[in-house]
């Protein structure tokens, strides 16, 4: 099975790895599949596509998609700023980008609800404009944007750092305007990283729970995300309903994981040729 290496310990470490992996990850995941198999396909379909389930997918995937798009735009701008421009406070800005990733989701949710509430630090300026963020899909989108921000920045940043200045100089020497260099030279090189960042932010957002429940208000059909609906089903001991929804989410999540791995491979090839 193995080749190379005069080192000992393969059997022991591999054995331990597989046993621990099976106990913590594989057996629990297999349980979900087994529990789904107890349902007839028709029952499973009905549970997974009920009106309330469909409404929750719309909220979850819609808000996650918009949030990931916002992150691609502002995340790229942030990465560009951090890599290309020198200014006081750049190190601090770079550190702050990691805060959404480090902050426990419950704290993020509470913090965003506090500032966006009608009397909150930001909400009080939105209310006169007729914008309500708390208990609306807008609030959910903002919460998902918050938690997804570091993913795009940290994916695009290293690619920008590796970008050879010679390429831009060559483009300039050959008569390209700055705008042409940006759109025809830099943007194509960044594309795999942008897509990866988008996919990471989106994948994180669809499963998110803690930062959303405080701000969403959890109104059925309007602001109920799928993870919350799963939680509700579990609290009502409706395990079949929870399992069906869980399966849908799991399939989407694993598809995203495969897409992200594929994008990573593409990105590395692209970087190798650049």
């Amino acid at each position: 099975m193995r080749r190379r290496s005069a080192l000992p310990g393969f059997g022991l470490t591999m054995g331990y790895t597989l046993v621990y992996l099976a106990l913590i990850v594989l057996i629990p995941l297999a349980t979900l599949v087994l529990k789904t198999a107890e349902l007839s396909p028709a029952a499973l379909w009905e549970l997974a596509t009920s009106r309330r389930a469909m409404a929750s997918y719309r909220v979850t995937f819609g808000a996650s998609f918009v949030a990931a798009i916002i992150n691609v735009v502002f995340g790229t701008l942030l990465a560009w700023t951090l890599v290309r421009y020198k200014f006081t406070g750049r190190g601090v800005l770079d550190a702050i980008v990691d805060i959404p990733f480090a902050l426990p989701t419950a704290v993020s949710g509470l913090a965003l609800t506090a500032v966006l509430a009608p009397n909150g630090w930001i909400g009080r300026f939105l209310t006169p404009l007729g914008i309500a963020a708390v208990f609306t899909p807008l609030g959910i989108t903002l919460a998902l944007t918050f938690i997804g921000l570091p993913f795009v920045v940290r994916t695009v940043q290293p690619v920008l750092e590796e970008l050879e200045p010679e390429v831009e100089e060559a483009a300039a020497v050959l008569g390209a305007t700055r705008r042409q260099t940006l759109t025809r030279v830099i943007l194509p090189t960044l594309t795999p990283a942008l897509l990866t960042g988008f996919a990471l932010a989106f994948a994180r957002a669809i499963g998110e729970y803690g930062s959303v429940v405080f701000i969403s208000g959890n109104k059925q059909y309007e602001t109920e995300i799928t993870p919350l609906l799963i939680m509700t089903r579990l609290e009502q001991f409706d395990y079949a309903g929870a399992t069906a929804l869980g399966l849908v989410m799991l399939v989407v999540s694993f598809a995203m994981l495969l897409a992200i791995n594929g994008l990573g491979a593409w990105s590395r090839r692209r970087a190798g040729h650049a």
Partner: protein
Amino acid sequence: MIEPSAVAATSEPVWVRRIVIAIAVGFVGLFVVVPLAAVFGEALRNGLAAYGNAIVDPIALAAIKLTFLAAGVAVPLNVVFGIAASWAIARFRFAGRSVLITVIDLPLAVSPVIAGMLFILLFGKHGLVGPWVADHGIKIVFALPGIVLATIFVTFPFVARELIPLMESQGAEEEEAAIVLGASGWQTFVRVTLPKIKWGLLYGVVLCTARAMGEFGAVSVVSGHIRGRTNTLPLHVEILYNEYEYQAAFAVASLLAILALVSLVARRVIARRVESP
């Protein structure tokens, strides 16, 4: 010095740069700094005494204890796993290696709520082995073991993910030399490998601990929310908030925020050591 024309062609005019920087700083300020500041602002709204009271409240203290206990069990177990997995994966070539790496990452792709649900489906009253476990007088779901299991699941890959690429980049020559010179496998690991990977390991431990203490969704599913017994700090925040104890909720949340900021600073310091040991 570069010619002015070259600067103009490979960078943006000063005013464009200023606008871009302003947008970047404004976005992060409004989106990240203001909410974080609001946590501390709300926590201290009724003064320091009220802040202190919310934290020394017996139920809050019980939540703090449980949070440390769960992390204290989950993190060491994931450290042992991370070291074993990275030794097997980074030091040997075998069939299915890249599949194994992907499978180790799976928990990161699973929604926390679903992670918690898996353990309910396994150990709950109507779960796969739930009845058997109950017959033997073991409580897993709505008790400490369930909280620990959910925490282990969500922090599962953190140490392994740090160590596998680090050990791969370092290569195995020094370990091989130690073995050829007669060192035992354990001696080689403790004296040769461990000193080489210690900063990377520490980085993984900080990441793992921070996530373990802050986990909300997965733990929320399996906890059962029994006050003073199965409530971790993040769950306590939610309960206080739902009971309109806003100031107390923010006070407890500020503890978690401080924890997160400390972990962030620690990670930055350690990351520099990983790059230049």
